[in-house]
């Protein structure tokens, strides 16, 4: 690791102040499960760490019937929370499908959101070119071993995927991110936080230097009480997703009245499957309709040398999860 200064922030304002005094070299530190690893690899070289685990770790109900989740809530605490389990089961399931119990005990909600890709070429500083790590350098993943890489929304600059499971559920749940920074407090739809790579894959999100996530807000979303998360991976536990699906489905009189769908393991950001949702609303809750909706979402999927299987896999997992949520009616 390169040397850095370390300070602890008692609250969000203090964190922004402490980071601001360090110019662009400061980074916020949560549980450290990704950032410390990247620093040890010298992929991340902050000159200052501002520890923000002292920020709110509370989960509270909002006036509108949603939940406000403090940025420093640990992943385990979020997954085990009574209201998360009952109102947003896909979120509890997604968190429990990710990482290991030790890591979930450490990792914070904001840190999970801002974790970086696990693309092996991004990590291989000594031997590989990577536009995310060194803008303009080139990408060795595009013509390399790219079985784990993106099939949706990739660019000639970057085919990396976002590694989070939790974020797939947050994308499906229409979460809102609470931010503070040099421009003061603001809110951002979760769907707008992460970027597609375009020609700036070094920027994972739209956040500016110094911006700090203070909380994540979940809206009241009764359909989410009937929701699920399914993750397909190379081993049955403790592995990143090949494809994952977060879904909520409401069926009335045999027809789909509400559906929320997001995919993981397929893109540079948690992928809200808006086209599938649009194709499905008002349709009969049948396997044929689920197939058509999945196909609509994946119509523009572009395989790389090693990951064409993800297109068919995503198709099947979407149909399976929707069928499971629809019950015997589909």
């Amino acid at each position, binding site marked *: *690791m390169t*040397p*850095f*200064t*370390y300070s*602890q922030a008692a609250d969000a304002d203090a964190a922004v102040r402490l980071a601001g005094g360090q110019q662009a070299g400061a980074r916020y*530190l949560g*549980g*450290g*499960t990704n950032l*410390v*690893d990247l620093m*040890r690899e010298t992929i991340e070289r902050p000159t200052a*760490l501002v*520890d923000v*685990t002292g920020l709110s770790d509370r989960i509270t109900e909002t006036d509108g019937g949603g939940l406000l989740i403090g940025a420093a809530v640990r992943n*385990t605490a979020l*997954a*085990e929370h009574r209201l998360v*389990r*009952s109102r947003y*089961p896909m979120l*509890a*399931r997604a968190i*429990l*499908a990710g*990482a*290991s*119990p*030790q*890591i979930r*005990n*450490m990792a914070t909600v904001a840190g999970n959101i801002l974790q970086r890709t696990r693309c092996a070429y991004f990590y291989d500083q000594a031997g590989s070119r990577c536009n995310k790590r060194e803008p303009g350098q080139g990408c060795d993943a595009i013509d390399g071993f790219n079985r784990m890489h993106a099939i949706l929304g990739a660019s000639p600059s970057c085919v990396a995927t976002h590694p989070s499971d939790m974020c797939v559920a947050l994308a499906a749940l229409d979460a809102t991110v609470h931010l503070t920074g040099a421009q003061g407090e603001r809110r951002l739809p979760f769907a707008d936080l992460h970027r597609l790579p375009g020609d700036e894959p070094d920027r994972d999100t739209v956040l500016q230097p110094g911006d700090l996530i203070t909380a994540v807000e979940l809206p009241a979303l009764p359909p989410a009480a009937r929701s699920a998360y399914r993750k397909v991976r190379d081993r*049955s*536990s*403790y592995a990143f997703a090949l494809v994952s699906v977060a879904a909520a489905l409401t069926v009335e009189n045999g027809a789909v009245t509400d559906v929320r769908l997001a995919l993981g393991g397929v893109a540079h950001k948690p992928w809200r499957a808006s086209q599938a949702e649009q194709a499905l609303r008002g349709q009969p809750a049948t396997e044929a309709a689920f197939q058509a909706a999945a196909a609509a979402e994946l119509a523009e999927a572009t395989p790389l040398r090693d990951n064409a299987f993800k297109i068919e896999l995503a198709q099947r997992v979407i149909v399976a999860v929707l069928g499971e949520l629809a019950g015997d009616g589909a």
Partner: protein
Amino acid sequence: MGITVNGTDVDLPDDPRVSLLDLLREELHLSGTKKGCDQGACGACTVLVDGQRILSCLALAVQYEGRSVTTIEGVGADGALHPLQQAFIEHDGFQCGYCTPGQICSAIGMIEELRRGVPSHVTGDLHATSIPYSRDELRERMSGNLCRCGAHNGIIDAIAETYRANAQPEAAE
């Protein structure tokens, strides 16, 4: 303020780059906690902080100011093995032994999570008030600790036997 390790107060390192793992091994000479991958993939460095299992390799020591750390050196009483340590011996829960301190610390933290009702990936009912101590549950919950010798069956046997008193019928399979 410092940090408490196995009941003893110690100073935090001046250099914030020192991981909790390196503090334990290199400065306190508590070499029971093992450095496996040093990147959060193997679980060999698992310790308990205020009773919760974490990976000490990904923890900067300075982040744990004022907290109480328990390592494998601190799980048993003086001169007496922790029941889980004894069970690992009886059930061949190791071969080379390198992952064992992490396995045991992890299992101690894991049982507290089970008792608290924290669900896992394989828990069928997210609303269950009590979770079965089944092999599937134990295996999933121990999946963050790898054993390259392949002693996982013995490890699960040792854990299941040690906590059988808490177990529901599923654990008796």
